[in-house]
């Protein structure tokens, strides 16, 4: 087969072609969605071009963890993000029965191409690189990172992040915890990065790591429900925290409406109420510098 000799060359050329041509024309324009002002009349089930007509399709990952969802069932309206989603729906005129949930793995939420949901709530931190690819709503929660240590750990009484320098630290992939650990602790042992929250917990349980860094509400939930005797050593004081937003298709016409609903919820105190109901009071977690 003399032809096969050229296959590597053809493949190499196609590889070059794949990467060629982009970068120069990358969309540099700032996101416009946030500044568009809308009124209640623009945001009705009839006028919104939702994924499924007359229905608001909301995405989240499975399993859905407390305190953001309860009983792994987003449809019950229990848990912080489930409650937020139903409140947003309500503001846009969708009754609870007009809200449909769909499973969206975090990895898939930012895949190119049309999205199979109207918006996705999954404790997703808003960051500038991510904003280039998707739309985010205004933030509905501001999360600090917290350090959780196992029962009887020497690290339970630390006063500063410096004391974590020589600790083996576990985090979950896809979270901003790793960035914060690298930036603020810069541990001597490379942090371990696990696939999901369950693996992070297991790693702490079996002593694979000395401490885990997760969002503060997660830390408090884990301490109270999953890791008896563990303690929240403290929360990161230096960073201004992560802002979570609903994820939407880039330049979705829904973004201004979600923001409109959220604004509404902030103004009449609904968001505050939901937050108080589902997210534990963070006051008992000392701040670590």
């Amino acid at each position, binding site marked *: 087969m003399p032809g096969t000799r050229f296959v590597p060359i053809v493949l190499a050329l196609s590889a070059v072609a794949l990467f060629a041509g982009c970068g120069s024309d990358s969309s540099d324009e700032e996101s416009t969605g946030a500044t568009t002002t809308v009124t209640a009349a623009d945001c009705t089930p009839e006028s919104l071009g939702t994924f499924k007509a007359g229905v608001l399709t909301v995405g989240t990952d499975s399993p859905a963890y407390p305190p953001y969802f309860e009983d792994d069932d987003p449809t019950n309206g229990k848990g912080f993000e489930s409650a937020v989603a139903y409140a947003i729906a309500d503001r846009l005129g969708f009754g609870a029965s007009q809200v449909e949930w769909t499973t969206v793995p975090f990895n898939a939420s930012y895949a190119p191409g049309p999205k199979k949901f109207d918006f996705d709530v999954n404790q997703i931190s808003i960051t500038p690189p991510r904003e280039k690819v998707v739309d985010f709503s205004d933030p509905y929660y501001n999360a600090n990172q917290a350090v959780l240590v196992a029962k009887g750990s020497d690290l339970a009484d630390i006063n500063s992040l410096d004391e974590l320098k020589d600790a083996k630290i*576990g985090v979950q992939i896809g979270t901003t915890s790793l960035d914060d650990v690298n930036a603020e602790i810069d541990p001597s042992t490379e942090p371990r990065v696990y696939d999901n929250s369950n693996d992070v917990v297991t790693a702490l349980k079996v002593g694979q790591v000395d401490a885990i860094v997760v969002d503060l509400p997660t830390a408090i939930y884990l301490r109270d429900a999953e890791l008896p005797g563990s303690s929240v050593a403290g929360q990161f004081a230096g960073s201004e925290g992560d802002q979570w937003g609903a994820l939407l298709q880039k330049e979705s016409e829904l973004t201004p409406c979600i923001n409109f609903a959220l604004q509404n919820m902030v103004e009449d105190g609904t968001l505050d109420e939901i937050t108080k109901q589902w997210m534990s009071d963070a006051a008992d977690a000392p701040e670590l510098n």
Partner: protein
Amino acid sequence: MASSVIVLGGLALLLFTSSGWPDVQETFFSPEAFRTSFPDILKAFWLDVRMFLAVEVVVLILGLVIALVRTSLSPALFPIRILTAVYCDIFRGVPVILLVYLIGFGIPTLGVTGVLAEPIFLACVALSLAYSAYVAEVYRAGIASVHRTQTDSALAVGLTNFQALRHVVLPQAVRRVRPPLLNDFISLQKDVALVSVLGVQEAFRVAQIDAQSTFNYTPLIAAALLYIAVTIPMARILDYLSRKEEAKR
């Protein structure tokens, strides 16, 4: 050659002119994302290479020992023969990712410390166990392919059982199974990435971290290229060996 150009060119045309292509290109083949993520992924890939080399040595030895036990005729070894047969069945039957996960999280539960609790070490153990089972079967096939008369003749000219095995059977057996052995090693070379489920930041995990923090899949392509850069030369060596073997027949 002409047909390759038409087929590949046609596919390329179809791909590059599709409406979603600019999005796909930006998300999977962004030169900028490639440049920023590649150095870290390359650095992490060194861990994959070292793990692969370490596990490969263990597998070559352990696999051979198991194969020798399984093919031995000595009645004294019967119980161990049964054990090795069970071993091969179990470790070939369990998905490697499951094995890495079970050993990686299971052994530390026993309360062991030091290297025994090190995820990299535990992943190497899991990979060695799994691949030794595959490789033992490859060796066994090779040993079985050497005709019984070879051993008989060796014994007839005065070689001991061990000498017959060492100088007559094994050289022929191993030469015959080099292609399938290499094939297993190509597979192993990719499976070392499974250490990532234990939280270790090897190339695939580093690429995943980059991809998820920027919402761009290009780092995964960068990692894929690294694995390919190692496996393709191995595949070519395999082809070469197969051709040489073929020519001898």
